[in-house]
């Protein structure tokens, strides 16, 4: 009697499992991937909000108009980088379009991983390549002068300040402040009793975190990572002075928990009115002016990136769309890139998703759209000018060996910048000195430079 019952106890679930398996086998044949005839393309991208918007509106607009089906895969930056590298190196041809940053674009172009876009952009009359902001084009071009990635959205850096706090103290922020002025304001406005720090700056380790703002300070203080002949200058007096200035400012008048603060943390701190100033990405402004996400909306003033020896010091960053060289659908891939980075796309996003979500910072014409100007009134002009003034070729006082304002456009920099940033972050925490951090940094920079001499 129990003999017959027992087997059924496990054959039941097994049969169900088998059925589920078979049903899903039948279903999985549905979605098509990349095709060789250009009727479908695959796009590999990072999960930034602007990319998600892109995925959201593609089917109803691009696919509807062109008949080209687009399949998106979203991965974090590091995995995305690995995947593209692998695919190109093995001639896999699995991806037709990938999102890459301004740091990768020239390096990958140099490695021969990317399809050039100049010939497509020039032949595409509707694309209006001349409308793209010059610094964006420069930072996404290879040494051969050809465009290798089309900018999707871009940013520079500027100084944001809490106008209420400035007014209360009777202080006026100049349009183009110097770092010395900023340090003075920070001292005057630092109010521990009220829980307001003088300034908020990134202290979180990472070449793209702490060293984005810090490298711009180094640039304007007359320092550089490398001279044109690849001589490392990390322990040079200018680099040290800038780093000391940054670390001291943060230690004396910065936000609590500075060594763990990145862009996100500073956005929270400043957005909750807990800092008088914040020097960071221009793209922060959209969130700061959104009353749902910040308590300082409408009360923020914007000034150009503070300077010392140079006339301007804002950084330059872009997220761009590129074609891996191995794509088998170059024509369809360009149609998609052209659509996503074109003028009409910005209007489409503005009118369907909201004007604050427009992927701005890459085209002159964006800043002529009335609705966008209205939505970004407080910061549109200064953002545009900051981007236009950024010079990725020569961001400091001396000629540079590689592209990049807040980074050095060589593959070794991600590792170098991150390692040195860990020590500088420790200096902000008071666990080491700036001198020690930079002495170690110089040694690491020597190693990186030896590959390029």
């Amino acid at each position, binding site marked *: 009697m*129990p*003999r017959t019952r*027992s*087997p059924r*106890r*496990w054959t039941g*679930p*097994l049969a169900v*499992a*088998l059925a*589920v*398996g078979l049903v*899903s*086998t039948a*279903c*999985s044949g*549905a*979605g*098509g*991937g*990349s095709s060789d005839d250009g009727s479908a393309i*695959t796009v*590999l991208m*990072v*999960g*930034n*909000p602007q990319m*998600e918007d892109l*995925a*959201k509106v593609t089917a109803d607009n691009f696919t509807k108009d062109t008949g080209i089906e687009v*399949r*998106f*895969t*979203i*991965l*974090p*930056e590091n*995995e995305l980088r*690995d*995947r593209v590298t*692998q*695919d190109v190196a*093995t001639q*896999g041809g*699995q*991806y037709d379009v990938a999102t890459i940053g301004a740091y990768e674009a020239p390096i990958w172009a140099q490695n021969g991983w990317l399809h050039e876009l100049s010939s497509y952009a020039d032949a595409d009359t509707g694309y209006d390549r001349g409308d793209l902001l010059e610094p964006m084009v420069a930072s996404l071009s290879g040494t051969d002068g050809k465009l290798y990635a089309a900018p999707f959205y871009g940013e520079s850096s500027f100084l944001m300040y809490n106008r209420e706090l400035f007014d209360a103290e009777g202080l006026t922020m100049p349009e183009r402040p110097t770092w010395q002025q900023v340090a003075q304001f920070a001292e005057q406005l630092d109010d521990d009793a009220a829980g307001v720090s003088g300034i908020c700056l990134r202290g979180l380790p990472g070449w*793209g975190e702490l060293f984005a703002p810090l490298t711009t300070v180094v640039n304007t203080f007359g320092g550089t990572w490398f001279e044109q002949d690849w001589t490392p200058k990390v322990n040079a007096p200018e680099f040290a002075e800038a780093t000391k200035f940054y670390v001291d400012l943060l230690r004396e008048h910065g936000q609590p*928990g500075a060594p763990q603060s990145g*862009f*996100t*943390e500073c956005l*929270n701190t400043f957005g909750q009115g807990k800092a008088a100033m914040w020097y960071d990405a221009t*793209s922060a402004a959209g969130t700061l002016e959104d009353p749902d*996400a910040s308590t300082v909306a409408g009360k923020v003033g914007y000034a150009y990136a503070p300077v010392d020896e140079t006339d301007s010091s804002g950084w330059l960053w872009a997220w761009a769309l590129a074609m891996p060289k191995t794509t088998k659908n170059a024509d369809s891939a360009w149609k998609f890139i052209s659509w996503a980075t074109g003028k009409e796309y910005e209007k489409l996003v503005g009118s369907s998703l909201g004007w604050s979500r427009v992927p701005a910072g890459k085209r002159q014409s964006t800043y002529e759209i009335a609705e966008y100007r209205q939505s970004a009134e407080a910061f549109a002009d200064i953002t545009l000018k900051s981007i236009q003034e950024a010079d990725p070729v020569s961001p400091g006082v001396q000629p540079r060996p590689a592209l990049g304002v807040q980074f050095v456009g060589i593959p070794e920099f991600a590792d170098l910048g991150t390692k040195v940033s860990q020590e500088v972050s420790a200096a902000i925490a008071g666990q080491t000195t700036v001198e020690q951090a930079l002495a170690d940094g110089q040694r690491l920079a020597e190693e990186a430079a030896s590959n390029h001499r």
Partner: protein
Amino acid sequence: MTRTVQPTRRGAGMTGAAWTVLAWLAGLLFFLPVAWMVLTGFKREVDAASNPPSWFFTPVLDGYRQVFDRDITPYLLNSVMASVLSTLLVLVLATPAAYALSIRPVERWRDALFFFISTKMLPLVAALLPIYLLVQDLGMLDNVWTLIVLYTAMNLPLAVWMMRSFLLEVPAALIEAAAMDGADLLVTIRRILLPIVAPGLAATALICFIFSWNEFFFAVNLTATRAGTSPIFLVGFITSEGLFLARLCAAATIVSLPVVLAGWIAQKQLVRGLSMGAVK
């Protein structure tokens, strides 16, 4: 019947209570990250990122809304297919192998057993490049069948070892008795062996299912847009710009549900199965 309540051998009194408390504490400690994940999934992004973290908040469904905005279905289907089919294949292959290593041991069974497990000693990353190139040559990149074959191969040694220890539990006298009664091999397997090792089979199946369901390394390297499994879907919510913790936790909660469900269905068998080798 077998369903006897375990006598409280450690007895009542202080020691018993202390063990109970300790067991519960350990259990809660292990469960804490899961509970935190589920909680965070219902937070607003700003609350999820707050430091120090908050236990009390107004739950919202924003995270889940964002997850369903992206199409999760193909990823779940791929995962179900890769996990279920590879688990079935593993059971079909591992059980006879385990039989030949326990009840009717082949010659030099000990060597065979270690040969099986030695395949688990190679780090996965060392195998990646040759596997990638092979799969590419076969034109099987971005194909869910590639994952099924790989997951089967990965879980097979473990399943053979597990099933062997379960089969060893079957008293030899029982099989002999069946033979005396004239039962042939198939009848013996169906009527004698399977009922006894069913809990072990369930435990093995669940472990193989969980391993395949959560596998990320091969999935991320061998798939592109069509065959991506749910772990690939998950990491897509990590971004360097903007907050993502709440939506990531919401997605992780959804993706964990099938495993929890499978464990819950197999619960009764599992408790017996997992402690089977322990009580000799």
